[in-house]
């Protein structure tokens, strides 16, 4: 068994990547020290040396740090070594993860597990998960999460002139005409059912 050096931490790389994206260059030694909370530039120098040894970065003729190839995960458009991306790679850049597709506003989205069958004709069944977005205006025809009698309930949001109606998607349930102030928990943006 050999005394192999510890591999470079992915978080270190991520930090550098972020710096590179923001500044379009790698940090100087004093910036490195600041970035990683070192109190001396010597520690920064050691880290840089390690990154050089591992082939993440190199020094240019002026002694400045610069990335090699795509090891830092930084696409170097126009960089000779990187060559031209194939059309397939190009296409992959503009994709959404399922997560991004279902959750448009991550800071304002919540999940609710559906109970009851009052929305079954809208395709929302007991046990389904709905993604609810808070802080957006409800429009006529949206499915909303409303607070009725201190409980959350899913209903169609309909406006009839001044009146607001909460309409179920199941003929067995009555239409609710909220009296006084109506508290909305948000607007339904997606339904998820995993088998």
């Amino acid at each position, binding site marked *: *068994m050999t*005394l192999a050096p*510890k591999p470079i*931490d992915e978080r270190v790389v991520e930090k550098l990547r972020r710096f590179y994206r923001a500044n379009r260059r790698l940090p100087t030694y004093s910036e490195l020290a*600041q*970035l*990683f*909370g070192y109190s001396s530039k010597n520690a920064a120098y050691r880290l840089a040396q390690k990154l050089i040894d591992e082939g993440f970065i190199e020094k240019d003729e002026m002694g400045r740090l610069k990335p090699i190839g795509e090891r830092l995960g930084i696409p170097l458009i126009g960089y000779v070594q990187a060559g031209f991306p194939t059309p397939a790679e190009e296409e992959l850049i503009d994709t959404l993860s399922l997560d991004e597709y279902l*959750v448009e*506003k*991550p*800071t*304002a*989205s*919540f*999940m*609710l*597990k559906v109970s009851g069958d009052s929305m079954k004709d809208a395709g929302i069944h007991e*046990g389904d*998960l709905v*993604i*609810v977005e*808070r*802080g957006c205006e409800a429009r006529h025809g949206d499915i909303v*999460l409303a*607070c009725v009698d*201190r*409980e*959350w309930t899913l209903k169609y949001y309909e406006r009839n002139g001044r009146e607001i109606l909460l309409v179920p998607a199941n003929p067995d349930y009555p239409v609710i005409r909220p009296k006084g102030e109506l*508290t909305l*928990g948000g607007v339904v943006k997606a339904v998820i059912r*995993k088998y």
Partner: protein
Amino acid sequence: MNQPITIHSWPRAIAHIDADAFFASVEQALHPEYRNRPVITGAERGIVAAASYEAKARGVKRGVPLSEVTRICPDCILLPSDYETYSLFSKRMFSIMRRYTPEVEEYSIDEAFLDLTGTRRLHRTDYKEIGRMIQDDIKKELDITVSVGISLSKGTAKLCSKFRKPAGLTAVPGKHLHLLLARTELSKVWGIGPNTTALLQKHGLKTALDFVRRPSEFAKRLLGKVGEELWLELRGEYANRIDTIGKLKQASISKFKTFTPPIADRDVVRARALRNLEGACIKARRYDQVAGKLVLYLRGQDFSTDGLEIRLDRPSASPADLTATLLELFDHIYRSGKLYRATGVVLAELVDSMPLQFGIFEEPEKILKHRNIFEAVDAIGERFGKHTIFLSDGLKIPMQHEGPRGRVPKRRAEILHGETSRQHIKLPMLH
């Protein structure tokens, strides 16, 4: 005495944003039936961790035992803490703040400092209005309220956020700073504890203004460098910078776990202590640090706490090295027959793990092997959840769901199809 401290209004604009009764507010945001009702969290620990404003109005305070709560407020809703959900809310709160300035210091789970200096033009409004916009966004998207204080330094911003609560918004520019300080008792100042208050009172000081009216040499002579910094802070001179890099390194790591009901069984208490050690080690390894000192605490049912610490021959963050030491400490403080309610492990004197040095009687091969094992344990943990692989003593820990009902947060009791007990979908659940 009415002279301003500075004639400049906003040489810097620092905001302190503090969520109101955070844990309780999150529960109220998710459960409509808890709204406008007294709610407390911390039921699993037997004491109040957070009390909603409705509960506070009835006299319920933090740290009070549950029996006391049910006596003074019989209709209070007692909830177990759901730290997973609170953390999700906390992260969202911080990312909303980052829409307004990149300089956000996550000071604790429910409070942050922001440097707003120079953002007026960007947002086309004054600092107070920016504070209100952040407050509104958080209210609209998370349905919880925060109190905002804006002033020239972290210390003064914190005084402002405390000035009006809940949902308060207080902005004090430099030219009005003396008015705020004149109304602030020394003991209310961030960084002045009861002892410092007593000391300053002996010199005839009553308010924060009295303190900053003295020359800085006075503060330095009496309270040292810290006092001088405090003096600068309170004068709005921004001594304490906003730390946006965040907690890259920890000073110490502690893992405490209360178990209910209290247990006397030696094996179980020991297994709990070991589990805490494992947890602390995982965290230390995540920060790439090793501990020079190991501390063990055992807390009895009567809240008496025994602790023992030991300095390690070689800094480590591997249970393989630390288990034997911990068990030695355990044998010293465990009293058979005594009922215990909590164990705690602290890893202190943390240093970077890079320079690995071996003692003359140690076996480098074995140590490296152990390190590789725990790297693998961490990798598996990352994929399948923490503590997927654990020391076999952990088998003696009773299942999480045992114990009285209502002690486990809903989010942990109700696992969705496709989730595991350790890994949940990263969205808060409405109930």
